[in-house]
Every structure is written in C-alpha cells, then in structure tokens.
C-alpha cells in the first residue's frame, strides 16, 4: 500500500518542492529585467537595473560592505576555528564535549537570540556599533561552522602523527603547520566556504549588531522595503549572485565529470 501511495504522490511532491524553492527565484529574475519599477506589471525588457547596481551609490556601498565583512570574518574565523578544532581534538573526551556544546550554541540558537545577546554585550561594554561590532558578530557565528567541518577530518587522522613529527625534530609549531594542516585541508576549505556564505546571507544578526549607518546588503534592503527609495537593482544583484553560483557549480561538476572519464 505504502509503495503505491509513494508512486502516486512522487511527482506531485517533486513539483511542489520545485515550486516552493524556485518560484521566488524565478520571480526575482523576472523583476530584475522589468522596465517598470512597480512589481505587479511587466512593461518591457531592460537591463537598466543591472547598471544601477554600480550607479546607485548606497547600494554599491552596501554590497561592498557585505563582501568586506564576509572576507575578513571568513579569514579570521577560519584561523580561529581550525585552531580551536585542533585543541578540541587533542583534549580529553569530557573537555572536548564541553567546548563542542558551547560552540554549538550559536548554531542551534535562532538568529534573533544570537543577535540580541551580542547587541546587549556590545552595548554593555560600550563597543562602537558599526563595522567592528558587526565583524565580531560574524566571526562569532562563523567559527562554530568551521569547527564542525574541520573536526571530523582531525578525528579520522592518526593521533600519533603529531608526536611522530615532534620526535623527528619538528617544533610543535612546525608539526602543526607541516603535518596537521595539510592533512585537514579539505575540511578547512569547506568550513571557510560555509562561513563565507553564512556571512554574505546574514540579515538578523547583522541588523541587531550594526549601527552608525553601517549596512550590508540585507540591511540596506530591509530599510528600503515598501519605500520609494527601493530599487529593483536589488533583484538584479541577487540574480547575478545566483547565476554566479550556478556557473561555479556547473564548472566544478564538469571538471569532476571529466576527471572521472579520464580515470575510466
């Protein structure tokens, strides 16, 4: 009975899923080439909103800030996260569960709780709201993702590899840089990629920890919703990002496909 039910429901379910996930993105793409500024009517095809990404100075600054924060926070949190993961891996089971539980808190916590907590701490210690506070916030929520992707690689590594290197005359520092880091490279890269995407996409935590007019793309967008200053250039920017990610994925896919064919 169950298999029958599954067979009947299969395609409707796939269709509903595709619709739910992709309908908004298709609408955004259509609106990005819509001549009219109002979103309820399609008056003609245009690329002027794509031009406006560059000419609209407030949008340009917001996009610049988004990438600035994402690049710096990814770099810092990748270093911190990798170091902490190595530390966790070297510690006793009890200690490492404790640290892991703490580091999971920002992942499990809804954004609004994380954002509010940081905002309260920052205003308590009188940190300047704006670029520095937002950067610290982004590092705070990125580090756990780096830890989570580096740790499995470390766990599968032979624990004695570090001792071996030290016995053979490496300083502990050299052992980490020449032996451990190369072995966990893929985990570090995955972690950095996740951190970067989380940072680019973040709205809620940034919204609560920013100040003095510093805004990333999401905050720029939110402050203009339903106002005259809203520009469809936002749709254009998003469409470019989507096209960019899809092309990257396709190229990566094609490359691995070719590699496989060569091997066979």
């Amino acid at each position, binding site marked *: 009975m169950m298999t029958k039910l599954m067979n009947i429901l299969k395609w409707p379910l796939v269709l509903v899923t595709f619709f739910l996930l992709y309908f908004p993105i298709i609408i955004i793409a259509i609106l990005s080439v819509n001549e009219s500024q109002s979103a309820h009517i399609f008056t003609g095809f245009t690329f002027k909103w794509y031009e406006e990404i560059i000419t609209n100075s407030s949008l340009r600054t917001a996009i610049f800030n988004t990438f600035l924060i994402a690049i710096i926070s990814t770099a810092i949190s990748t270093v911190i996260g990798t170091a902490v993961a190595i530390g966790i891996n070297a510690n006793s089971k009890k200690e490492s569960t404790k640290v892991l539980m703490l580091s999971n808190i920002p992942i499990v916590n809804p954004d609004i709780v994380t954002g509010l907590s940081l905002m*309260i*701490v920052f205003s308590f210690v009188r940190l300047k709201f704006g670029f520095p506070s937002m950067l610290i916030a982004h590092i705070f929520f990125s580090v756990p993702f780096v830890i989570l992707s580096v740790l499995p690689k470390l766990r599968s590594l032979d624990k004695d590899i570090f001792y071996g290197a030290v016995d053979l005359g490496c300083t502990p520092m050299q052992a980490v840089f020449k032996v451990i880091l190369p072995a966990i490279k893929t985990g570090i890269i995955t972690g950095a990629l996740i951190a970067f995407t989380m940072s680019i996409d973040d*709205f809620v935590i940034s919204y609560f920890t920013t100040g003095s007019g510093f805004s990333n793309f999401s905050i720029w967008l939110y402050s203009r919703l339903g106002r005259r200053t809203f520009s469809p250039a936002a749709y254009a920017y998003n469409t470019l990002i989507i096209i960019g990610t899809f092309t990257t994925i396709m190229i990566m896919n094609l490359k691995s496909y070719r590699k496989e064919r060569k091997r066979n």
Partner: protein
Amino acid sequence: MDYLQRLSKPYKWIMYLLVGVPIIIMILLSFTSTLGVDFSGAEFSLDNLGRLNEPVYTQAIKNSLTLSSIATIICFLIGYPIAFMITKIRDKYKWLILVMVISPMWSNMLLRIIAWEQLFKPNSLLNTIGISLDLLGTRSAIIIGMVSIYLPFMIFPIFTVLDKMDKSLIEASVDLGATKTQVFTKIIFPLSISGVASGVMMTFLPSATAFALPERLGGGRILLIGNVIENLFKRVYNYNLGSLLSIVIILIIFGAMRIINRQEGGLII
C-alpha cells in the same frame, strides 16, 4: 599534547562570557526598569511580568507556536519523501539534485520573502495569467513563506541520515520476510529519527522566531514573537520588556529541545 590542548582554552572562556553574560544581563533587565543597559539608577520592578499577560504578547507567542508548528509539519510531510527519493538516485546525479535543493539558499532570504509578498498581493504579475492570490496578511501566506524558506533545512539532515544508513539491515529484514511497508515503519523510519529531530529543530526554531517574514507576509496584521521583540529593542527601546520576551524565547527553545530529545528516545525504544 599539552601544546595542542591549550588551543581551545581561550575560546572556551570567550564562549562562556558571550553566552552567559547576555543571559544574566537579560534576566537582570527583565526585573528592573532601566534606560537601555545602563544600570545606574535601576529599580527593581515586576511591571514587565504583569505586562506579559497583555493580549498583544500572549497572542504573539500563540501565533509563533501555531504557525511554525504547522509549517514544520508541512516541511516534514514534503521533506521526508523528497529526502528518501534523493537517496534512491544514482550517485552521479545525486550530488546535482542535492545542489538543486540547497542552492535557493544562496539567494538572499529577504528578497525571496519579498518575491512571495509581491505574488500574494491582489495585483501581481500573476494577473497576466488570470490569477489573483490576494493572500497577503493571512496565516496561509506566512505558512507558505516559512515552508518555502525552511524546507531545505528539513530535507538536508534527513537525507544525510538516510544516505548513511546501513543497507544490509534492510536486506536482512527483507530476507526475514518483512513487507515493504514493514521495512519502512520498522527499520528505515526508526533509524532516521535523529535526522528528523534535527530537521524539525532547524525548521521550527528559526520559523518561530522570524520577524522579517511575518512582518512582510503578515501585512502588519499578524504578529509573531520576533516582531514584538524587534519592535521593543529597535524601535521603542524598551530593553526590559524585550529582555523578558527573549527569555521566554530561550525557554521555548529549551522546551522544544527537551520534547524532541524525549521523543527521539521514546520512538527508538
């Protein structure tokens, strides 16, 4: 090994501070009346606790719990079969389909909410094909938005668990005479509960605490607890009542986690 062990120590203390201190401050703020987080001249007061009973707040908490529960159930009903189907795809295409499921998340979340908002208006692009949804400001609008945005968070953890599952268990049960339905209800589903649990957490918690989504799709008529808190902190600057409501959210999180963990244990046994 001592050298490596030290690497996680500072992080541990910073996390204790960044997680613990705000909760302590929030509890202090909840029972005082202050200006922002300035505690000079703070007075003890239970006013906020009384205001928690006001219909605005009770309704917001109720809305949050019901709407996000419905959205989570729908996500599960769609997400589980989809995750199951993906595990059946040949390895070469599996990866591609997974990317298809995750890639909408690279599109800005706010913008996707706006896209739904535009479609739910009585006058929308859909008029050109003769449809007018006119859903803005309804519960259905919020639920559709939530499902659309959080569905990948349900599919992914369930897929991970199903894909890693030991296939020999299924073969063994078939050999021992289990029907397909029995294989599913007695082997596959119980083994995938941990994935379901994290999927439920990852859809329920963010949807229950969202504020941009209900603000745009609820048309200002339906408030969730996130809207109330955002309003208190960012617009009215009432940190005291805001903190109390945040504590309520944190309690809801703990409650949800406990229920899910208990369910998990119960279902496995």
